[in-house]
């Protein structure tokens, strides 16, 4: 009985806190995406040759974990199969946050744009059985820094 109560409390708490955090995060993401809209992140490997840009590796990394509610939802999903929608928004946030952090770094270097942008993910709790899954989303690319005007 106590286990059930604990479970329900955790579930409710996970839901309430998780939803609140998610809404807040999305607001901040949209705001910063607007702010860095002048600093494009481009997937192409071939940067413009002129002017002679300075180059620097920039990275943005986010580690995310799930709340209790989403974990339970995903576990239920494991029974039936189908899209694990509970994790979709979480990973969407992680990807965008990583990209924003990368852009932030690039902006700090005074870059005009970032080229050859790639994503990587790594599972941190891989193989650790019962631990809550958390993953890292890493975005990296080459920041192109305009040469000082002569």
């Amino acid at each position, binding site marked *: 009985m106590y286990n059930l109560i604990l479970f329900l409390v955790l579930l409710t708490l996970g839901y309430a806190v998780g939803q609140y955090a998610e809404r807040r995060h999305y607001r901040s993401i949209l705001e910063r995406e607007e702010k860095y809209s002048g600093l494009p992140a481009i997937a192409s490997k071939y940067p413009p040759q002129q002017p002679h840009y300075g180059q620097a590796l920039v990275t943005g990394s986010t580690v995310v974990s799930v709340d209790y509610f989403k974990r*339970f*939802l995903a576990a*239920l*999903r494991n*029974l039936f199969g189908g899209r694990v929608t*509970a994790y*979709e928004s979480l990973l969407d946030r992680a990807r965008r946050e990583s990209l924003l952090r990368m852009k932030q770094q690039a902006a700090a270097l005074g870059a005009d744009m970032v080229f050859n942008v790639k994503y990587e993910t790594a599972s941190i709790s891989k193989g650790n059985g019962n631990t809550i899954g958390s993953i890292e989303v890493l975005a990296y690319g080459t920041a192109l820094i305009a040469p000082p005007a002569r």
Partner: protein
Amino acid sequence: MRYRNPKIPEGINVSPGHPLRELALLAGAAILLIVILAFLLGQFGGRLARLLPFEHEAAIAPVELLNSDAGPALQGYIDALADRLTQRMELPEDMRISLRVDGGETFNAFATLGGNVLLYRGLLEALPHENALAMLLAHEIAHVAHRDPIVGIGRGAAVQLVFGLLFGDPNLAVLGSAGLYTQLHFSRAMERSADSAALAAVHGLYGHVAGARDLFNTIQAERVRSGSGEPPAVFNSHPLDQKRIEALDLLASERQWSRIGEVTPLPATFGRWLDEAAAASKDRSAH
């Protein structure tokens, strides 16, 4: 060349739909699955348990939990009544019924493994006449004859075992004798069929079924008297008294059993016998 990141519409990488809706859907489906699994397991366990020969069932009966506080006179009387009933109930050859009386106040009676039937003084005292007592005995004997106790335990044990293994913490104590004693749950179908068999036996014994329904009236009266709305313990899983009475009335009219007849009173000394049983029970708990 101009490089830019156009603004991408929201909601492409995230499926729409409220998480609570998904939870309700998935949890509902999971619960349904578990209920179906439990039902199938129960049926399987029950079928398996029924295959256990009665003599083995007697060997695992929780005899240490079944005391009898009945003096020789009371024991002789209820044994004789039960004998007259069993003659009309087509019990298998090897099946023996042992009646025991507990002198406690509990308003209860139940059949358990090995043909053991335990009657509590609390219930016996409330019975108005022998016909109601016969109905009670026949009902419990019918449970034994139908192998309901072992089937009930088989069902409970199969469900507990598999769910225990699935979700961890398999409560294997269910297979011990204490478990057997507390695991008795009869389904409504079991109760109904025990009622029918009991009514047939009562009709066979007295030639009419007058007074048989007084057993249920007594139970219902106790329910009202105790006032808690809580039904007497063992009748928890029983179908509602009113529905049972209706079912019995229907059966009686279908078979054209007379509902009018003279009820046989209980022996004049019945009350004294019960007092003796109560005293014996106090003695036993004092030691």
